């Protein structure tokens, strides 16, 4: 069965301390991989879509990359306002949508 696994479950960083979140996946045929940000009490907010291995997308301090087995969300010099849960999701060639359980990021001032 297709699945998405995110690690770590939780991550605490000092402000300015860069790091990466991991999204590993197994899929019969990948159509797209998505990253979302979710703040407490809110719905997920779309960040990026990646379609093929080697693709990269950037937005402010965030950069998403994709290989054939995993995706990384790199956070450069994070700020406290980057604290949130980051969700990874994918669609397969059967048009099914799978979400990971997320990484809870806390950035300490």
């Amino acid at each position, binding site marked *: 069965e297709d699945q*998405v696994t995110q690690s770590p479950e939780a991550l605490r960083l000092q402000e300015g301390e860069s790091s990466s979140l991991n999204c590993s996946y197994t899929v019969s045929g990948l*159509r*797209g991989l*998505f990253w*979302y940000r979710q703040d407490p*009490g*809110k*719905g*997920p*907010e*779309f960040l990026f*879509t990646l*379609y093929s291995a080697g693709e990269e997308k950037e937005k402010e301090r965030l950069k998403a990359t994709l290989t054939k087995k995993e995706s990384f969300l790199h956070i450069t010099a994070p700020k406290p306002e980057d604290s949130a849960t980051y*969700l990874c*999701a994918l*669609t397969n060639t059967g*048009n*099914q*949508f799978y*979400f*990971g*359980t*997320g990484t809870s990021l806390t950035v300490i001032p």
Partner: protein
Amino acid sequence: GAGVSQSPSNKVTEKGKDVELRCDPISGHTALYWYRQSLGQGLEFLIYFQGNSAPDKSGLPSDRFSAERTGGSVSTLTIQRTQQEDSAVYLCASSLEDRVSNQPQHFGDGTRLSIL
């Protein structure tokens, strides 16, 4: 512009009662999705609408759950004879085109349902 709107934002009800949750998608979005999110769990897919039809109902957990969409816009998720295990946040999302097009989904802030 206006995003996906869900109501109510919170709902507390007694076990055995029926509840209706409403979703107003982004104007012009033809695809609409319902998900359930429990504490510490990932999003659980419930149902997908394309226009007013639901080609994928595979995620509905039991026949107590049903959903409809009218006018290609507003959708209602109904849970009959609620049970305590139905307590969760119910999220609605919409996207510009059908599921095949791989468009990102845009989410509302959900309805937090608590069954006493």
